[in-house]
């Protein structure tokens, strides 16, 4: 069912894409202190910019159905099983490359301004470069193991960056939470990889190369494939914050805002999507898994959206919206529309990064204040931020002819029309779209419109961010409009996108297109609910009024549930954390001292008692030893004398 992928062309250029950031990271790590903040930051940006240039160049070179490969060396080889450290670039990877390096570059520049006052700036850029390196490893690795290395690496960097301001205990806690939750997911991921290897090995195929896998995947029994894909998906839920492992992402907002933009919106959290798309040939063979993915995606999307409705922390709103958008992507994956998923990933990277950076700019202006209830009326103070924010908001809400519009509609349409899709999925996604529009505009109004609710000193402090921060915002804003136009539906100028990704995700689900008028109707419906959402937001928050937050159905049970995020954290705490801590506590206090130490000490004591007799021989007196030595020599001599 799968034609062999075209033979890869060697291109030594590739290795520089990941290696440049790594080099910058190393330099800053060892000499950053001496280089000074400015130089270190510029160096980091330069490195990422350079690798972006290379990536763009490679992108130009890349023919429609081509694969570039650059093998550095053989990592390890045991018997027939051989893993290379080698990079490959095909259409899918190319897209990811552009997103990672491009947006990464912009965010680096933005960070120059944002982290200006922070004395940990050098450390920050070291982490950031390291993250870029691992992310590139993740998307460029030509085998599952390399991908996994990158996967773990980005997890590590995310941990480091969430806890960047480790002086505050809560940040450290948040970092731990993210790391641990990810570990749970990664555990499943590892199991999946192992299962895959062993099962294929059983068939005599020892490999992890994607190309090889694609060739031989049909050797596996459906049940096995289902198991593997499920396990892999567990990993994906961890990394991409899906139910049930999404809880870490909102807390991850403890990190600096550029980090939230880069890692927890644009790139890392999409690793799960990328992984599923990369292994689409595998997932395509497991319909049950796909439907589960679709269900979870839809659920997450809806669920997160409902939480986002009521959050008051500017970054948390964005965080939940990220979760929700990721849900969209998984929904698309679930219905077999990998192309659509990647497309939304692509556009989402732009406007979500823009939103985060905008919020960062706002926080910067508010002097660290993140509570939307204390904001308002910033429009006049920071126009650049405001307008870019508006554009991004429109984009994510799915206003016509913005990026979000195209990608989201594509997903909705696929959810409805594709073989795995169903009206149910469409309905959920549709409602979610409405809520998205509502909470995004709620945020917009609360932050930028109306009168300022900040205390006088804060008002005095208000200022537009420097160009180094606003310029990236503008670029991203432009991106969040036009990046979508690549994937326009058939009834408009038609999609470059699918054709572009065709060769890669071919063998995924042939998306059979339904009737165009249906598609248009659905699109219209979406627009309606989006408009409704916006209108509602305006009614509730748009018009200037003194204290905003008390509105919005105060005290409503639903409101409180949503505000408290469905008490998920508390539930997990009761269900998992508490028992776990109790058990380990018991082990530490009772089992370890009693049993483990008991055994160890018992052995020691036994030896000691057993030796109590012979110990007397060791008098510690050298001359006694000499005596024994002498006796032995004598015995030997006598023995030799008795020889004839």
């Amino acid at each position, binding site marked *: 069912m799968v034609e062999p992928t075209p033979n890869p062309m060697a291109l030594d250029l590739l290795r520089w894409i990941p290696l440049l950031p790594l080099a910058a990271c190393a330099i800053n790590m060892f000499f950053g202190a001496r280089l000074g903040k400015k130089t270190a930051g510029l160096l980091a940006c330069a490195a990422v910019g350079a690798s972006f240039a290379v990536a763009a160049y490679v992108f130009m070179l890349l023919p429609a159905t081509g694969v570039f490969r650059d093998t550095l060396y053989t990592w390890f080889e045991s018997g027939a099983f051989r893993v290379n450290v080698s990079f490959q670039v095909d259409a899918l990877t190319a897209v990811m490359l552009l997103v990672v390096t491009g947006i990464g570059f912009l965010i680096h520049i933005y960070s120059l301004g944002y982290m200006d006052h922070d004395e940990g700036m050098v450390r920050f850029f070291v982490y950031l470069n390291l993250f870029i390196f691992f992310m590139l490893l993740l998307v460029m690795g030509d085998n599952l193991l390399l991908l996994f290395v990158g996967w773990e690496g980005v997890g590590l960097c995310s941990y480091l960056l969430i806890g960047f301001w480790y002086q505050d205990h809560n940040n450290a806690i948040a970092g731990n939470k993210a790391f641990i939750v990810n570990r749970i997911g990664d555990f499943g991921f590892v199991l999946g990889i192992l299962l895959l290897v062993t099962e294929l090995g059983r068939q005599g195929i020892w490999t992890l190369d994607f190309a090889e896998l694609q060739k031989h995947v049909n050797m596996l029994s459906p049940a096995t494939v289902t198991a593997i894909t499920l396990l892999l998906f567990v990993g994906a839920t961890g990394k991409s914050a899906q139910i049930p492992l999404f809880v870490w992402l909102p807390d991850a907002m403890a990190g600096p805002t550029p980090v939230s933009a880069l890692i927890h919106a644009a790139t890392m959290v999409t690793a799960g999507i990328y992984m599923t798309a990369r292994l689409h040939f595998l997932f395509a063979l497991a319909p049950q898994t796909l439907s589960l993915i679709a269900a979870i995606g839809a659920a997450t999307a809806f669920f997160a959206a409902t939480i986002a409705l009521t959050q008051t922390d500017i970054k948390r709103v964005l965080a939940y919206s990220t979760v929700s958008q990721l849900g969209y992507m998984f929904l698309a994956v679930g219905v077999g529309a990998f192309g659509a998923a990647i497309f939304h990933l692509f556009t989402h990277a732009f406007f979500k990064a823009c939103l985060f950076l905008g919020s960062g700019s706002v926080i910067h202006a508010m002097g660290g204040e993140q509570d939307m209830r204390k904001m308002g009326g910033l429009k006049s103070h920071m126009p650049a931020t405001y307008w870019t924010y508006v554009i991004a908001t429109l984009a994510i809400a799915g206003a016509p002819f913005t990026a979000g519009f195209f990608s989201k509609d594509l997903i909705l349409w696929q959810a409805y029309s594709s073989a795995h899709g169903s009206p149910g999925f469409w309905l959920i996604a549709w409602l979610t779209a409405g809520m998205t529009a509502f909470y995004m505009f709620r945020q917009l109004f609360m932050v930028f419109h109306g009168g300022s609710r900040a205390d006088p000193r804060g008002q005095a402090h208000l200022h537009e961010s420097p160009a180094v921060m606003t310029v990236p915002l503008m670029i991203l804003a432009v991106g969040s409009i036009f990046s979508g136009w690549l994937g326009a539906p058939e009834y408009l100028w038609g999609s470059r996108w699918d054709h572009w990704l065709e060769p890669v995700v071919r063998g995924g689900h042939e998306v059979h297109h339904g009737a165009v008028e249906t598609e248009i109707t659905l699109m219209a419906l979406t627009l309606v609910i989006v408009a409704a959402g916006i209108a509602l937001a305006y009614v509730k928050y748009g018009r200037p009024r003194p204290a905003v937050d008390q509105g919005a159905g105060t005290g409503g049970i639903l409101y409180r549930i949503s505000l408290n995020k469905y008490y998920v954290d508390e539930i997990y705490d009761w269900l998992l954390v508490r028992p776990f801590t109790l058990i380990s506590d018991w082990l530490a206090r009772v089992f370890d001292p009693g049993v483990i130490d008991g055994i160890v000490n018992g052995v020691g004591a036994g030896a000691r008692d057993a030796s109590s007799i012979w110990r007397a021989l060791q008098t510690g007196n*050298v*001359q006694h030893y000499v*005596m024994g030595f002498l006796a032995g020599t004598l015995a030997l001599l006598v023995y030799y004398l008795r020889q004839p």
Partner: protein
Amino acid sequence: MVPLNHYLILSAAIFAIGVVGVVIRRNLIVVLMSIELMLNAVNLTFIAFSRFLGSMEGQVIVFFVMAVAAAEAVVGLAIIISVFRHRQSLDPQEMQLLKW
């Protein structure tokens, strides 16, 4: 001319005397000296053999034995000094801490 055996017996006797010193003396310095005595007994055998078998190797070996003996004496005496500093005594019987 003196036969080889006599040299060997002589050195055997000296060696044994040295052993006695090592075993019975309760003064580390004397013990060390007795060891030197034993070494010299061995040297004597080497030289005697090299003379009677007409090969230089014996003398070469003695050369090395001397080097080793020098090193051994130096380190041994250094140890004795530092031991004596801590416990004003040279009696090996009083230095029995190194046991169970």
